[in-house]
């Protein structure tokens, strides 16, 4: 190739005249699989087209190295397999946002055989902006003119034939939501893959030629045959100073320095001549062309004065009514998913419990005192998995409702309303949803909360959201709060509940402000410019599909890791285990319990000749029966349980069945007593094991630090184990505060008594509550933080920072409160007043009008 390179702007050239692209394979033979990239702007209905084309054959993964979802699906046309890749929704292909960069590098590196471009017919001009950029990259292209039904309702008719002629690209009319145009689109895509007819740029850039020419000839002279992009495109991008274009040059072994120098010189010369940068010039020309093409291809009927969406907005976004609608919607989500979903778990829980019972049956049988390791570890893992799976109904509802919110268009309005407040603290309008999910009111889950930050386009605000969402009161924090409130603040419960519910939001806002001002200050930020799409009625299938998809993702990503780490926690709680001496003591106790039992049933024909081994089996049978009865509700279920256990072991069944036989009842009574003894011994052993366990040692080792917050080692162990899953904090405390369990005292009473006798007060409870409210995210959430930030360092930060913060806050409150002799409620009030004041000070520090007029000379220029 020599310097007679093709003109930079093949304006109005028919696509067939375009010279074949250097370095590209010849058209794919019909037998080969084809790769198609699906590109389109946000809200263009791209995902509905994706679902329409591929049906259920989809696979979600991440683009390499980033946290952007990469959806892949397959379908076939004329016996040819086509892989469809859903590119991130972008308004253009500029290098300014992550999604845009991801989409572009996919196009450059993977070189799909066809690019399918979904266009929102209702805003053709804006959509064409992307189309024109795609065309300049030289792909066989097909346009899906989507949402024609909505456009038609609004009196907009786009002439598809004219558009196709104008662009030199086949155009197919579609309605993704209703599956219309599926067959045509598939066939057109298949044909495009066969013909491999490349698109060509249709935008004129007069005056740019002379600056492009030197770069192009240099590229040609260096032999750019292997370049994956058209030469004209590359030259233009180099002139724009685009980093990705520079990378392309470097990667392909060209003399980058010479080319880049020439590009920089050219750009400077252009700027001097035209008083505008190349990037700006291209942007403007493309926009003009888009406007002109859109104008020429659109027929517009005179419209009704106000659209339905606008009429809804007048009420929903009304200054005075808006807060009520917002609260109503948020409350409805909370009620339907958290409250109702929790009720649903009472229906689903028996299945999980049955699963556990099944595991009990399958695993090796328990001994009298000791369980085989496989059994205890297996059950521990089943329990961890169950704790997680128990939330599945909640998530299914939650995700379905969020999908409905997104599809309806109200989510964008929520962001619109909340942005003012959130932006002040370094967050973003779109941070609202993550916070709601994580539990602005007590009861949510940080995992979906962190997941939902995906949509926030401003990276800095997104990071701040990810790191503060875990402060919200998730469902699993509630039991500990309830426990502490009942034990220490029986008279001030409502006030404390109010403090707890609101102080987490305050803390999150303050921390977000702190982080964006410090560690996050260098992170990329973006202007808040967001489409407010028209209201749509969400479709049921769309809601269900998304809900199942996201829930499955949650189970897959979080489930596997939680089960894996639960094993580690198990080991930390289980080992090194009891010494030989202690074991012998317990063996002795077990012996005596057994001999007491034997004595009690002496001469009883039912127990006569029962070996020790059979006796343990009987005890296990007894335990399994009781747990099954507990799990079953209603007469039918009870009858079923009876039936099962009758067939399972007819010899043992008489011991659990109702009977009037005197000797049998005597045996049953003795067995019950023995079972109680056994349970007590096992619990004592468990407590001793935990005390001496690695985790217990760590908890005691932390006492010198945590004592300033008033935490003893028991609290430490509970807090440590709650890192695996919040629920376990209460369970661990239950094991640790054993004394008095026999007298049927509630855990609240026991804790209160023990802590008071140790000379401590409700002040400690306040410190625990404050620490717990700032406590690092649970394991599952940290994994999600890792997934969403794409970095282990941020994950580590999300664990260490809140720990330090919580410890400092709790220690300060405890120490100061102790010095002043404050009561628990007094200390809490003081803490609350302090952070609330801080919130007001930080929030009002910069008046609103100064924030948007100050420091921006451009804003005031040109007034005089």
């Amino acid at each position: 190739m020599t310097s007679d390179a093709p003109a930079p702007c093949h304006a109005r050239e028919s696509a067939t005249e375009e010279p074949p692209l250097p370095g590209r394979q010849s058209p794919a033979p019909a037998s080969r699989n084809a790769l198609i990239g699906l590109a389109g702007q946000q809200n263009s209905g791209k995902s509905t087209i994706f679902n329409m084309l591929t049906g259920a054959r989809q696979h979600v993964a991440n683009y390499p190295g980033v946290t952007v979802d990469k959806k892949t699906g397959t379908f076939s046309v004329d016996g040819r397999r086509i892989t469809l890749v859903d590119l991130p929704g972008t308004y253009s292909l500029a290098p300014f946002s992550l999604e845009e960069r991801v989409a572009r590098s996919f196009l450059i590196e993977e070189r799909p055989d066809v690019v399918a471009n979904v266009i929102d017919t209702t805003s053709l001009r804006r959509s064409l902006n992307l189309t024109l950029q795609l065309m300049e990259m030289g792909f066989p292209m097909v346009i899906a003119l989507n949402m024609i039904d909505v456009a038609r309702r609004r009196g907009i008719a786009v002439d598809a034939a004219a558009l196709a002629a104008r662009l030199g690209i086949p155009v197919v009319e579609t309605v993704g939501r209703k599956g219309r145009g599926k067959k045509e689109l598939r066939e057109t895509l298949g044909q495009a893959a066969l013909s491999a007819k490349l698109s060509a740029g249709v935008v004129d850039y007069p005056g740019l030629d002379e600056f492009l020419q030197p770069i192009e000839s240099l590229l040609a002279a260096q032999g750019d045959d292997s370049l994956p992009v058209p030469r004209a495109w590359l030259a233009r991008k180099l002139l724009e100073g685009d980093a990705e274009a520079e990378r392309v040059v470097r990667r392909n072994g060209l003399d980058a320095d010479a080319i880049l120098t020439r590009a920089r010189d050219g750009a400077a010369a252009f700027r001097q001549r035209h008083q505008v940068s190349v990037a700006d010039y291209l942007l403007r020309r493309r926009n003009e062309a888009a406007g002109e093409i859109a104008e020429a291809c659109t027929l517009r009927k005179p419209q009704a004065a106000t659209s339905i969406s606008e009429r809804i907005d007048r009420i929903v976004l009304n200054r005075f009514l808006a807060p009520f609608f917002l609260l109503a919607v948020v409350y409805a989500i909370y009620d339907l998913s958290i409250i109702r979903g929790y009720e649903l778990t009472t229906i689903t829980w028996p299945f999980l419990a049955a699963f556990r019972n099944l595991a009990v049956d399958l695993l090796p049988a328990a001994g009298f005192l000791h369980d085989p390791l496989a059994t205890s570890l297996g059950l521990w893992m089943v329990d961890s998995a169950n704790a997680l799976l128990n939330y599945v109904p909640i998530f299914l509802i939650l995700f379905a409702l969020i999908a409905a919110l997104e599809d309806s268009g109200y989510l964008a309005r929520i962001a619109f309303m909340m942005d003012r407040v959130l932006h002040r603290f370094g967050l973003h309008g779109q941070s609202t949803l993550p916070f709601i999910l994580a539990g602005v009111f007590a009861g949510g889950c940080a995992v979906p909360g962190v997941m939902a930050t995906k949509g926030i386009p401003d990276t800095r605000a997104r990071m701040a959201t990810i790191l503060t969402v875990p402060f919200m009161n998730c469902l699993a924090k509630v039991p500990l709060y309830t426990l502490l409130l009942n034990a220490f603040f029986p008279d001030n419960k409502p006030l404390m509940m109010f403090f707890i519910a609101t102080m987490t939001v305050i803390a999150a806002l303050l921390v977000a402000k702190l982080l964006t001002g410090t560690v996050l200050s260098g992170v990329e930020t973006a202007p808040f410019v967001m489409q407010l799409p028209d209201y749509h009625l969400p479709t049921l299938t769309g809601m269900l599909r998304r809900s199942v998809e996201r829930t499955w993702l949650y189970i897959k990503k979080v489930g596997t890791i939680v089960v894996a780490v639960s094993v580690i926690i198990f080991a930390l709680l289980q080992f090194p285990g009891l010494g030989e001496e202690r074991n012998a003591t317990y063996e002795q106790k077990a012996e005596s319990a057994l001999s007491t039992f034997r004595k009690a049933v002496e001469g009883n024909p039912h127990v006569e000749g029962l070996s020790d081994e059979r006796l343990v089996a009987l005890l296990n049978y007894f335990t399994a029966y009781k747990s099954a009865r507990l799990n079953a509700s209603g007469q039918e279920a009870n009858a079923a349980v009876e039936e099962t256990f009758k067939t399972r072991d007819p010899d043992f069944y008489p011991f659990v069945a109702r009977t009037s036989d005197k000797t049998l009842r005597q045996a049953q009574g003795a067995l019950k007593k023995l079972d109680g003894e056994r349970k007590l011994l096992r619990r004592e052993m468990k407590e001793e094991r935990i005390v001496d366990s690695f985790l217990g040692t760590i908890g005691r080792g932390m006492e010198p630090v945590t004592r300033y917050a008033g935490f003893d080692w028991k609290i430490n162990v509970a807090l440590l184990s709650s890192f695996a899953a919040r629920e376990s904090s209460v369970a661990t405390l239950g094991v640790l505060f054993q004394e008095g369990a026999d007298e049927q005292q509630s855990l609240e009473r026991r804790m209160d008594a023990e802590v008071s006798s140790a000379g401590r007060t409700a002040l400690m409870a306040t410190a625990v509550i404050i620490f717990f409210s700032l406590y690092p995210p649970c394991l599952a959430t940290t994994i999600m933080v890792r997934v969403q930030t794409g970095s282990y360092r941020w994950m580590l930060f999300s664990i260490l920072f809140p720990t330090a913060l919580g410890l400092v806050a709790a220690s300060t409150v405890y120490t100061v409160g102790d010095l002043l002799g404050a009561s628990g409620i007094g200390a809490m009030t003081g803490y609350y007043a302090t952070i609330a004041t801080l919130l007001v000070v930080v929030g009002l520090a910069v008046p609103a009008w100064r924030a948007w007029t100050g420091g921006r000379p451009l804003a005031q220029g040109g007034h005089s």
Partner: protein
Amino acid sequence: MFWKKSGMNEESKGRRRRFRMRHGKDDEQTVRGGGGRHHGCSLNSQPEGCRCRIRSVGGTTGVRQRLMDLGFVPDGKAVVVRSAPLNDPIQVRLGDDNVSIRRAEAALIEVDDDE
């Protein structure tokens, strides 16, 4: 048409006064041009319901790209639909599209009155 136009101006002046009271004296400059067409006002200073024509889009290339991607293009028409319940951001209609934009970024867009 002339009477209609002056009527509109009266109305918008009233709104602007209210607007100014809410936001302090920094808006003084935008009001100064008061009587006739306001050349070179920013979109931020336009009252609700105001129709205008975009003259130029400022800011860094990245910001400008984003604004233009969403339809804030020179010579395009924009209607200020409403401000959010807390006054910031504002909702702007561009053709058939509704776009939300913070006042800080709206201040980067210069507009002329258009009626």
